[in-house]
């Protein structure tokens, strides 16, 4: 039986990289969103400019589930290279839409799916003479056909085309014509609409569709970052580029036309972090954006910034490691290397957003924290969050909010000071010393910043006692940080339960849905989403108050599980890992399957102790 569903299905596009499919696919997704139906698009792309396979998946969910579901109900097969593999991933009863210009042997098709062939290339060849146009408009033609098949309102797509090509009438007309061509052709060939349908709804509300990298860049803009030094690397490049675009729009001094920011594309990641550290030392809010290989290169500077106490913000948009790994796939596998980056005893503050909303919020907050704590602050995104558009509550900003510039002594502070300035003196008992900026005062406050050991007055020393004094103060400062970070978020099950799941970042996307699916079967789990490192006390309490704890994350080695053990002293055997690390986002089905396999079988009533 063909799948029947309204506003609840997964459609996957299989394309060839560089064929112009990305903008057509986005057009398709946004049309559904404009019809008030929540969507979760995901781009699965190769490390390549042209020619390799790429996929685009749109989850359509009136209920608002934004995690990857797993499987596809409808496949748009535009890539002969992956045709067989793609067909295999269609759910039984699903639909295949393909370019039938060249006949496909029946043996390649399945008899448990609905096959919809349309000679897209032939149609475009008849319509267009320019080869590039044939290729580009073929994508719009299939969007038109999908509109007919899935009952998407063509007026909405027309409107999006108008907005997209505003002021370019020729392009608007050409795109609308291609759209109509596909729509009419599908109407003529198939019984439209099919049983998978989109229906007008109001489930989107005022939400926006935005990529995490854009959101983080916007957070840096609003958070007052003035210096950005970076080196291109997937998947973080679009963060620095979005920062540049937004600065060009919002940070030009109206009187002079000059820039209230400086962005340098450095020669490598080492120089990028070096510049950010230099700017942070000199009182600018500075950041770099990178991914795993860049984090590896930057290690020495992280140690310097930790030890010399220089504020700096690092956006790590994680991808599949180790080494070059899977450069265009997602993972949460830089957690450990960031948490203890560099040689010697080091510990760093990590902020872990779950999506664009928090990427914006945490990015802005990271600059306050870095300056308050005088230390590197890592914002841990990943490719799934960074490069995929996600439906998100609109960004908000409180105009009365002030930047927390931390403990910086001004000229007047130094003038009034009744004792000599000690850069590494713990005056307030919170482990955070006061700093001065170069040029502040003619005769007071100058000190020497160094990565070597020193006493409280920043004087070089190799004595053991001042060294220990300093290292223990840094430890104390780390404890101060613990209380300043975003608290974890608890989502209790409907019924009391002794089973808890810890997770973080993009693993959040499928978690609520998995909780609901399990609850429907009488399996109740409490959820706690970790949002920062060092870990909040609530995490320890959560572990304490549950008999069985799972830690779900996207890496092979259970990196958060290790951090929990290190940071909270929890015995590792208390924490059962749920690990997903094939480079694709964790899916709802995966989480559900892994948890339900480890939980008591449904319908069997067991005393709580037996859950262990």
């Amino acid at each position, binding site marked *: 039986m063909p799948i029947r569903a309204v506003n609840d299905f997964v459609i996957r596009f299989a394309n060839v990289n560089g064929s112009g499919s990305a903008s057509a696919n986005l057009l398709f997704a946004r049309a559904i969103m404009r019809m008030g139906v929540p969507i979760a698009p995901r781009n699965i792309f190769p490390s390549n400019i042209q020619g390799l396979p790429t996929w685009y998946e749109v989850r359509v969910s009136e209920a608002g589930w934004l995690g990857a579901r797993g499987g596809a109900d409808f496949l748009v097969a535009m890539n002969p290279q992956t045709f067989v593999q793609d067909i295999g991933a269609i759910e039984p009863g699903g639909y295949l839409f393909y370019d039938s210009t060249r006949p496909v042997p029946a043996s390649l098709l399945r008899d448990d799916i609905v096959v919809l062939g349309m000679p897209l290339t032939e149609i475009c060849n008849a319509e267009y003479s320019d080869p590039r146009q044939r290729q580009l408009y073929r994508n719009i033609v299939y969007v038109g056909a999908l509109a007919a098949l899935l009952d998407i309102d063509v007026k909405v797509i027309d409107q999006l085309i108008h907005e997209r090509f505003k002021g370019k009438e020729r392009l608007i007309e050409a795109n609308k014509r291609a759209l109509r061509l596909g729509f009419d052709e599908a109407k003529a060939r198939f019984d439209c609409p099919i049983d998978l349908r989109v229906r007008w709804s109001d489930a989107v509300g*005022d939400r926006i569709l935005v990529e995490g990298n854009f959101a983080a860049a916007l957070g840096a803009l609003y958070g007052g970052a003035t210096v950005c030094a970076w080196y291109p690397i997937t998947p973080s490049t679009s963060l620095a580029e979005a920062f540049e675009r937004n600065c060009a729009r919002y940070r030009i001094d109206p009187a002079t036309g000059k820039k*209230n920011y400086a962005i340098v594309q450095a020669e490598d990641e*080492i120089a990028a972090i*070096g510049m*950010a550290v*230099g700017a942070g030392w000199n009182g600018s809010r*500075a950041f770099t954006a990178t991914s795993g290989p860049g984090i590896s290169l930057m290690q*020495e500077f992280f140690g310097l910034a930790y030890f010399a106490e220089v504020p700096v913000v690092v956006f790590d948009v994680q991808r599949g490691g180790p080494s070059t790994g899977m450069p265009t796939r997602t993972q949460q596998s830089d957690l450990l290397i960031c948490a203890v980056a560099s040689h010697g005893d080091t510990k760093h503050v990590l902020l872990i957003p779950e999506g664009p909303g928090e990427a914006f919020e945490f990015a802005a907050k990271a600059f306050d924290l870095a300056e308050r704590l005088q230390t590197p602050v890592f914002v841990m995104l990943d490719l799934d969050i960074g490069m995929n558009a996600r439906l998100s509550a609109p960004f908000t900003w409180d105009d009365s909010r002030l930047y927390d510039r931390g403990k910086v002594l001004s000229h007047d502070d130094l003038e009034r000071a009744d004792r000599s300035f000690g850069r590494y003196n713990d005056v307030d008992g919170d482990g955070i010393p006061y700093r001065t900026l*170069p040029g*502040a005062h003619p005769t007071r406050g100058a000190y020497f910043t160094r990565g070597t050991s020193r006493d409280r007055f920043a004087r070089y020393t190799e004595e053991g006692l001042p060294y220990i004094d300093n290292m223990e103060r840094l430890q104390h400062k780390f404890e101060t940080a613990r209380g300043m970070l975003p608290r974890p978020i608890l989502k209790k099950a409907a019924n009391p339960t002794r089973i808890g799941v810890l997770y973080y970042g993009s693993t959040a996307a499928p978690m609520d849905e998995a909780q609901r699916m399990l609850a429907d079967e009488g399996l109740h789990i409490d959820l706690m989403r970790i949002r920062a490192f060092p870990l909040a006390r609530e995490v320890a309490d959560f572990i304490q108050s549950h008999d069985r704890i799972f830690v779900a994350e996207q890496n092979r080695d259970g990196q958060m599980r290790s951090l929990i053990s290190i940071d909270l002293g929890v015995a590792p055997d208390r924490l059962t890992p749920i690990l997903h690390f094939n480079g694709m986002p964790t899916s709802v089905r995966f989480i559900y399957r892994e948890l339900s396999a480890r939980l008591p079988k449904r319908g069997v009533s067991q005393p709580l102790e037996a859950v262990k």
Partner: protein
Amino acid sequence: MSYLAKPKFHHPAIEVNALGFTHRDYEGSMSTLCAGCGHDSISAAIVHACFELALPPHRIAKLSGIGCSSKTPTYMLGQSHGFNSVHGRMPSVLTGANLANRHLIYLGISGDGDTASIGLGQFAHLMRRGVNVVYVVENNGVYGLTKGQFSATADRGSKSKKGADAADEPIDLVALAIQLGASFVARSFSGDKAQLVPLVKAAFEHKGAAFIDVISPCVTFNNHAGSTKSFDYVREHNIAVNSLDFITGRDPIEVDYAEGERQVVSLHDGSIIKLHKLDAGHDVTDRAAAFATLERHRAAGEIATGLIHLNEDAKDLHDTLGTTTRALNELGAEGLCPGSKALKSINASLR
């Protein structure tokens, strides 16, 4: 030792500069380098130049990498903020600091290992970006703190203290800096204060990337027969292509070189450099001539010193970037945060 403060008392009639500071106000902690180290003479020359230019010490930021040379910022300019960063990475830290506040005076101190070996890449990129800096390499051809290994500036065939030959082609940082677009490029000798002080002063007044390669013999590991960076060798083979008088609006400073043909170059801040051309063929504003001069002397087994190249029309990094004339680190939320109204329109564009 560096943690011992130098005695503060001084002669009551000690000379003061336009800011009312004495020479002593530009000094730093006691040096921990070997007695007789060339680097200490360079520190003294920098102190001297800053005193004579009456630079406000707190407006100078001194940055360095790692190594003997990179320790020297501690031994000068005690009223200035200093940053002893990471091996070979001073250029990036300095670039970032300069981006944050364009109004300070940036002094980068490095060595031949720090700049020509591990830090060659960052050196190159700082020069090509035209960061406004006085970048001094204290060049002794060896690693001192690790006891005498060759660096990348050691001349081929030159002998280490243990008798090994330097096998590879040396890197000429002066030629490299010119090629990379540095707009003030000089070479000097730590033993020649008369040449070095005016060069340092002129470099401070120059806007853009100013580079001075100072041959600075290592008395402990590279001052023996067979070394081409020993005091004796450099004294014998040092050929000054020019000597210069550096003239600010204040006191003209004359140097005691023999009179020759003069070349006068005006700096953008109104200062004037009068060059006594000891090498008649050398025109400092001509890049091609600079390369030719370097190559001619190198082929003759000589070390060309003096102001090798000057380009007063170069743009600095802030010019290229178009940054505001205010220091970025002084901007507050009003100049940085677009506010909730702009955010509303950003939200609207994402629906």
